[in-house]
């Protein structure tokens, strides 16, 4: 499409426009509570989850709904546990609250937790912006991320701090329109019902029927096909609950949200902001499974139609060139590559589900193409995602700077120093986003996990439990953060070593352990060079699938980290001196 760069420019202009609005607007009257709810929904869902949740439901089926439930559940926790009391504390940010309530050591540890979790969220936003930019400009993903980073820094320079509440609300309205309008169109055209959340019930049953047909016709493999309605195929019930908890508790302690919406009295406003946030977020979150279902139906119909490998739709190659679509084990860059790759496999004359790998990150962006809505909607959707990603990245960036002492207007911090700090934070996040150590949704989930594990117990105890003291809070933050971070890093990046050390505690069955042993021997025996690298990749990929303690997945690390934080908080608080509430707290 010739005008894709135009949509890219539109996305950048959108981000710049709302940033400029933030510069001008807030001096006057404060936004109403419903508008604050809109802004809260925009910043909490953000572009990473907007795109990622659809991909999760598409890929995992029912299990992907853990994201929908977790994100939605977070708003009620905010309302019940945080909103009634945090606005009365007189703090200006989350680390400031910890300093006032507990003292300097918990404040410093909370600052560390803020920096880690917000950096992960910033990385996820840059990945979302980079992906949208790369698709629109048809450039390499790394180039897309670099352009997004420069645009983010420019937005920060324009504004000098995070996005204003007025502007965040506008971002949410744009997200809602770009996301819902095509869905309403499809629902009306296909089923005559303009409410996608109801209309897609028909799609669910059609998908179920198609799944059975594909299995019967050997166009899908039972080991690869994850039926949409069948629960707990990708996540066990414990992991489902753990992921849901990580997102809900993470949102209730997310520094960029708390600093913006839950610090200023009256508590009533904070309470109703959370209620409106939940309402608006529900509109988006409940639409994501519909989008995933429409995309899945289109894809399964394509496969069910026994499409020839020489006749694949153009979107597969557009995304294949970004390395996000693989067919027969190779990136689908063009038809010739696909035909050649599939000729090496038995019986692969038409497209089969087991030969096709779609990266979950691309699903939402590609849905307009997959469902045949047309390229204009791809452009509008991608431009909105780009603008939303850049705009919502300003919140985590501001939270990082704040935790590092870079609050705008703070004594001793010049504008140039602030810019240098922002540039450094963006540079780190850009490097991680370009390396792409995990997919966008996983990265955003890690951000919430670190907030849930590191900040939630001490935050809620500080508000509700008088006996919680500085030593207990420091222990809670330290233990929760350490366990969460170590589990995430070890099971993902040191999976081989982790499994070797804790094989007896892993949920891996005898077959999986045997496969691990075989792959390990193959890696040891492989000749140095490409063969050794390929053997390591296979071993590491398998190790990641079995590196766990009692079956707890990386995304559900909070199942281990949260109890560690709570136990440390309670035990240390009770074993150490009671903290007088009248005691002035240095900060």
């Amino acid at each position, binding site marked *: 499409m010739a005008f894709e760069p135009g949509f890219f420019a539109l996305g950048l202009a959108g981000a710049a426009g709302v940033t400029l609005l933030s510069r001008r607007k807030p001096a006057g009257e404060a936004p109403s509570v419903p508008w604050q709810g809109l802004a809260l929904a925009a910043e909490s869902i953000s572009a990473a989850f907007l795109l990622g949740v659809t991909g999760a439901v598409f890929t995992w089926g*029912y299990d992907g*709904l*853990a994201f*929908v*439930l*977790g994100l*939605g*559940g977070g*708003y*009620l*926790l905010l*309302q*019940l*546990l945080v909103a*009634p*009391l945090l606005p*009365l*504390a*007189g*703090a*200006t940010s989350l680390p400031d609250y910890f300093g*006032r*309530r507990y003292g300097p050591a918990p404040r410093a540890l909370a600052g560390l937790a803020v920096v880690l979790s917000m950096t992960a969220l910033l990385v996820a936003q840059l990945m979302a912006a980079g992906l949208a930019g790369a698709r629109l400009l048809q450039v390499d993903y790394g180039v897309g991320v670099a352009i997004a980073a420069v645009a983010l820094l420019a937005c920060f320079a324009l504004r000098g701090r995070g996005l204003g509440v007025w502007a965040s609300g506008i971002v949410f309205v744009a997200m809602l329109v770009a996301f819902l309008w095509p869905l309403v169109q499809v629902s009306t055209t296909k089923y005559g019902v303009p409410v996608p*959340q*109801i209309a897609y*019930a*028909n799609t*669910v*049953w059609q998908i179920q029927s198609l799944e059975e047909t594909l299995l019967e016709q050997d166009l899908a493999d039972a080991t690869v096909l994850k039926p949409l*309605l069948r*629960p707990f195929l990708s996540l066990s*019930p414990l992991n*489902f*609950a753990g992921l*849901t*908890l990580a997102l*809900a508790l993470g949102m209730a302690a997310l520094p960029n949200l708390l600093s913006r919406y839950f610090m200023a009295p009256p*508590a*009533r406003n904070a*309470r*109703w902001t*959370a*209620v409106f946030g*939940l*309402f608006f977020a*529900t509109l988006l*979150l*409940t639409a994501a*499974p519909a989008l995933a279902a429409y995309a899945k139906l289109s894809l399964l119909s394509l496969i069910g139609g026994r499409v020839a490998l020489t006749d694949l739709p153009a979107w597969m190659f557009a995304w294949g060139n970004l390395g996000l679509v693989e067919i027969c084990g190779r990136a689908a860059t063009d038809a010739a590559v696909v035909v050649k790759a599939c000729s090496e496999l038995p019986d692969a004359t038409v497209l089969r589900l087991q030969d096709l790998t779609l990266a979950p990150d691309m699903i939402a962006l590609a849905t307009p193409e997959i469902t045949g809505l047309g390229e204009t909607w791809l452009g509008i959707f991608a431009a909105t995602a780009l603008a939303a990603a850049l705009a919502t990245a300003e919140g985590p960036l501001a939270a990082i700077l704040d935790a590092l002492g870079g609050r705008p207007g703070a004594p001793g911090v010049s504008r140039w120093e602030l810019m240098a700090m922002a540039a450094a934070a963006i540079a780190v996040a850009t490097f991680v986003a370009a390396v792409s150590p995990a997919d966008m949704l996983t990265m955003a989930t890690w951000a919430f996990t670190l907030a849930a594990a590191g900040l939630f117990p001490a935050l809620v105890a*500080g*508000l*509700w*439990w*008088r006996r*919680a003291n500085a030593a207990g809070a420091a222990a809670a933050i330290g233990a929760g953060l350490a366990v969460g971070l170590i589990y995430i890093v070890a099971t993902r990046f040191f999976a081989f070593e982790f499994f070797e050390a804790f094989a007896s505690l892993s949920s891996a069955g005898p077959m999986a352990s045997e496969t691990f042993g075989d792959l390990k021997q193959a890696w040891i025996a492989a000749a140095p060079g490409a063969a050794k690298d390929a053997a390591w990749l296979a071993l590491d990929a398998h190790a990641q699938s079995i590196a766990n303690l009692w079956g707890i997945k990386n995304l559900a690390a909070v199942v281990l980290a949260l109890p560690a934080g709570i136990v440390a908080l309670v035990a240390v608080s009770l074993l150490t001196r009671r903290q007088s*509430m*009248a005691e*002035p*707290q240095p900060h």
Partner: protein
Amino acid sequence: MHSGPEPAKAVGPRRRRFPVFALLAWAFFVLAVPRLVEQLNIVDVFAFPLGYFMTAQGSLLALIVVAVLSARRHDKLAARGDE
């Protein structure tokens, strides 16, 4: 220092009733209902299997109801000066 209530009141926990029932409702819809999906799927609602419907949207709608009821209740308590 910030201008506001004295530090002890501003910083420390309040005497306020912990929202036990609302949190139990939260735990039911967010943690228990998804676990019961297979049992709930026997029934259909809006042409969806009930278990799928609840996890995809029903539980969120229920959370909105809990949120509104809870917020209204606290507004009334605040008006009476109980919090």
